[in-house]
């Protein structure tokens, strides 16, 4: 699990590498939340995310609810395995994302 962040004005881009599961989701959640002050646009770069379990979906749902009020959130570079999880759980309907 590796997380890199880049802030440009009120846009925060977070590049996540690895899997977002029970063990890593708390860290992903904490690292993103500590940088959200003044952020109106959150971009999550999933290019190097292998897969997401329900622990990762929980983090994404909370962020989506929060960012809806502040501006918006978008995922980019989503691979087929992550997309499958989104489709099975109906998260494809509530998240804005681009497949990579």
């Amino acid at each position: 699990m590796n997380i890199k962040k880049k802030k440009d004005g009120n846009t925060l881009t977070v590049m996540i590498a690895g899997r977002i599961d029970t063990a890593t989701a708390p860290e992903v959640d904490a690292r993103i939340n500590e940088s959200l002050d003044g952020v109106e646009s959150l971009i999550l770069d999933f290019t190097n995310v292998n897969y997401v379990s329900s622990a990762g979906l929980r983090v994404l749902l909370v962020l989506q609810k929060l960012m809806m009020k502040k501006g918006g959130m978008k995922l980019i570079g989503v691979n087929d395995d992550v997309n499958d999880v989104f489709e099975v759980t109906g998260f494809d309907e509530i998240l804005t994302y681009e497949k990579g």
Partner: protein
Amino acid sequence: MKELKVEAAVKNIEVVTDFVNAELERLNCPPKVRTQISIAIDEMFGNIARYAYTPNVGNAAVCFEVQENPLSVIITFIDNGKPFNPLEQTHIDTTAPVEKRGIGGLGIFLVKETMDMVEYEYKEGQNILTIKKNLV
């Protein structure tokens, strides 16, 4: 049949995943199926690690079996913790708008959707959770 016995702790999800993946590699398991099984392990063993023995600690066993015709794997998770049937989680609505979305039950839902069989049994003081996945 192969068996792994470890402490039911979040840090051991990776140990269990590596144990199963090593077996799946030998079977030339397709990458997509391997990911689905890794997610199922995170949901199932993660549940045991977080809830089965809290606030105490305990062990869990993971058994790996292979069946032929069609080629499939059976993974069984056994713990001696509190009786808990994850299959009894309430139905989740995958079409609700984001404001009304809850997260409870999503993990087991995901496992039910991606595995070919999920079974739970409580027997002689043990939670026995079995998942089966066809590899072809």
